[in-house]
């Protein structure tokens, strides 16, 4: 696969879309990837032909010692067991240990309401439970701690709760728990970073021990989205202890119980043998969620067999992982959408992108499909910003065609026969190969007369501050994960409604449609509203539309596990490969 990538780069160079230096850089990265793989494989002695396609890269063979690859779990236990801090690795009579590298930095707290990190949400899905959980197949929210829900009035939702569920300390989960949790996150005094997620909630009323009525400020079509990523703590524990204690001692109802938090190192959990949900079969007795700051080190841990799952595999290292015989990559399309924003509103000051023809010219200038093929581990076109995974996505909208001649013509019509010069502000990014994509795009834009100068900010906070304060150039790279809300509202509102601090676009007609979409509870009606909204967005092109990301995980060949489209990893579904 990497060969194909390199060939594509070479093609880009021949077509004059990247310069020689970029090509050399690409070649070096490519060679380093192959070389590292060769080095990694050099010590392997047994020749087990795995099913990865053969390549002509001559990287020293594609095998590492993998007697364990197809064998039962116990097989991974040789030599490396003593190298792990956990002692036993991926095996053991009682189900063994699953070792996951969760993130590059440690969690700040064990209190599930006092953070806004995806990795926190993931970790706490294991210790705590949510009222609802997304079905990874349908993308719909399904009952979990709540047994069912019903919209009994436009602004009132009735939740029926599951009975007989106990916290790890024996406390009962009841309607009082649910009320307490919602009251806690929405209480401004609590200063929970999640308060914004629940801004639409007006209050919770206990009907009986296992029924609550949740009132929303307005009709709230995405209410069920709020039932997930919101973890229930015991009200009795919270009332008996202060926040500082809760920040260190998590007690939930979840599939794993808290054992120890070694700060800066790892979170150790052990199976909750009395877990209430019979559908969840927890194969691993112990779960270790580690912090390893460097991505190369994370990969080394995976290939050394001392970690079972890593959450990020750089695109150029996929081949090294797949050929290792120790682990494989898993690619999954996710909700996050990347785009290059054009300041249509003039928020950064008067600029050429205020003319819609220039924005279309920029869209026609870029070979989006070409970038996806060459530089991405997959990608779903987003012709009007909305990801195919969002509810309300309109598949009939055509993406901009790659047509440099049309782009030049549009630019000329807009009164720029000699082209334009603009600044393109870039921050640190979660997109794979962001630099290469931006450079390819820069060349394509320059080819039609849109000459961009990069202003690259290496600090995320500096970029975010400038972005939010409307100072991110007339053009900047951005991506949006919709806060795991699988609804067109989750991206169109935040990115394009004129009231939002993120918007660089202002259109009263679109604002009205988005407000209608938010106010309606009828799915069919909402689909039509968002279809109209997407047509406006496509025709107005307030950004260069790119794609929905694909993310790449690395998973040990001893472990059977799949990532999810919402990136909420559920490690309790992992099992040893038979």
């Amino acid at each position, binding site marked *: 696969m990497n060969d194909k990538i390199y060939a594509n780069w070479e093609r880009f160079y021949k077509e004059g879309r990247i310069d020689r230096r970029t090509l050399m850089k690409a070649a070096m990265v490519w060679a380093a990837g192959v070389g590292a793989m060769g080095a*990694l494989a050099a010590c392997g002695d047994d020749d087990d032909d795995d099913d990865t396609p053969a390549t002509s890269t001559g990287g020293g063979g594609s095998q590492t010692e993998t007697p364990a690859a197809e064998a039962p779990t116990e097989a991974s236990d040789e030599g490396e067991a003593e190298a792990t*801090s956990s002692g036993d690795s991926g095996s053991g009579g009682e189900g063994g240990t699953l070792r996951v590298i969760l993130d590059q930095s440690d969690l*700040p707290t064990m209190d599930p309401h006092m953070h806004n990190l995806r990795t926190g949400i993931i970790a706490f899905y294991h210790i705590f439970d949510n009222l609802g959980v997304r079905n990874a197949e349908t993308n719909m929210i399904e009952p979990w701690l709540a047994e069912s829900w019903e919209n009994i009035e436009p602004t009132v939702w009735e939740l029926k709760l599951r009975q007989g569920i106990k916290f790890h300390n024996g406390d009962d989960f009841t309607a009082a728990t649910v009320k307490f949790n919602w009251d806690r996150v929405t209480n401004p005094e609590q200063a929970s970073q999640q308060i914004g997620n629940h*801004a639409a909630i007006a209050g919770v009323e206990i009907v009986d021990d296992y029924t609550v009525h949740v009132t929303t400020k307005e009709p709230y079509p995405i209410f069920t989205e709020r039932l997930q990523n919101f973890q229930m703590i015991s009200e009795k524990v919270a009332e008996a202890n202060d926040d500082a204690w809760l920040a260190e001692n998590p007690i939930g109802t979840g599939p794993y119980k808290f054992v120890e938090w070694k700060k800066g190192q790892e979170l150790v959990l052990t199976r909750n043998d009395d877990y209430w949900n019979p559908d969840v079969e927890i194969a691993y007795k112990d779960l270790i969620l580690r912090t*390893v*700051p460097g991505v190369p080190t994370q990969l*080394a841990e995976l290939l050394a067999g*001392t970690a079972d799952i890593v959450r990020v595999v750089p695109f150029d290292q996929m081949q090294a992982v797949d050929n290792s015989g120790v682990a494989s990559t898993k690619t999954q399309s996710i909700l996050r959408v990347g785009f290059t924003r054009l300041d249509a509103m003039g928020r950064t000051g008067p600029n050429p992108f205020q003319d819609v023809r220039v924005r279309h010219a920029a869209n026609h200038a870029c070979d989006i499909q070409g970038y996806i093929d060459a530089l991405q581990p997959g990608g779903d076109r987003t012709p009007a910003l909305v990801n195919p995974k969002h509810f309300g996505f309109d598949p009939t909208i055509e993406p901009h065609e790659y047509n440099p001649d049309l782009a030049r013509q549009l630019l000329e019509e807009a009164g720029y026969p000699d082209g334009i010069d603009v600044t393109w502000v870039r921050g640190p990014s979660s997109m794979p190969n962001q630099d290469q994509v931006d450079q390819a795009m820069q060349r394509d834009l320059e080819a039609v007369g849109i000459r961009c100068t990069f202003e690259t900010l290496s600090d995320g906070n500096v970029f975010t501050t400038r972005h939010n304060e409307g100072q991110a150039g007339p053009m900047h790279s951005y991506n949006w994960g919709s*806060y795991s809300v699988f609804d067109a509202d989750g991206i169109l509102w935040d990115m394009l409604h004129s009231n939002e601090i993120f918007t660089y676009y202002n259109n009263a007609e679109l604002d009205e449609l988005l407000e209608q979409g938010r106010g309606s509870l009828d799915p069919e009606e909402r689909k039509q509203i968002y279809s109209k909204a997407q047509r406006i967005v496509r025709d107005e092109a307030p950004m260069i539309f790119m794609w929905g990301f694909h993310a790449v995980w690395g998973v040990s060949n001893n472990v059977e596990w799949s990532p999810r489209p919402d990136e909420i990893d559920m490690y309790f579904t992992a099992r040893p490969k038979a």
Partner: protein
Amino acid sequence: MGSFIANRVMQTVVAVFGISVIVFVITNMIGDPVNVLLPPETPREQRELYREQMGFNRPLVVQYWDFLSDAVVGDFGTSFRAERPAMTIVWERMPATLLLTLSGTILATVIAIPMGIISSYKRYSIWDNLSTLFVVAGQAMPIFWLGLMLIIVFGVNLKWLPPSGYGEFGIDRLKHMVLPTVVLGVFLAPVTERLVRSGMLDALTQDYIRTARAKGLRERVVLTRHALRNTMIPVITVLGLQFGQLLGGAVITETVFAWPGVGLLAIESIRNADFPVTQAAVVSLAIIIGLVNLGVDLIVGVLDPRIRR
């Protein structure tokens, strides 16, 4: 001696104060922490409320005064994220950093001094050339690259050592220490080796060495007690200065080896806009570097009575 110590302590205090000012200004220049601390969807009024609760809405001068008056008594405030005192968080991580820095310094000294002595005594021999090769290689290799190479060879391929992490107290910890210690040692040893070599070359031509030999002292005694002792004065001073560099190097080493020290914490806190932790970490490291250099000055004073006067 008393006034010498008092003088050096005063200098350290002034330096640490200056650093606290710089770190406060720089962290506040990074940007509005609310952008990072709250989810983007947070409504405006709640952002304002949060800003008020955290005290971000006060004028910067007022914030600085509060910071300073608390910092004087060692209180750097509460972490924006972890709801615990920033200083506590930093000092939880300090043992890991000091352990690594000390082991790195010791390894560097153990490599550098014998190597320096041999290459000066057997000048232009194969040993001298080999040590020059080591020095050039050690200086030329970036720390993170060497770290990754060691991980690939000893962690991934040979599986002799754990690729990264801190391990449990005991043998496990020692195993985890080997690779990062080697990296820091290789980083620090070359400069020390060069100093020892040139110092020894210089000393060996001095009259007192000829005298010592003329007295019939054994060559080992001439080298260690007479030549080396005089060579050690600049070496120790540089080791003290290098200790600071090593703490800086530990930021990279800790990142590569997932070593849960202060360097790693500082990086995390910068990424997370957790200003109190960044400030506490930087000032703590500054104090330690100041103390080490104070200690170095005292040791040099003992070795060389001329300096005390």
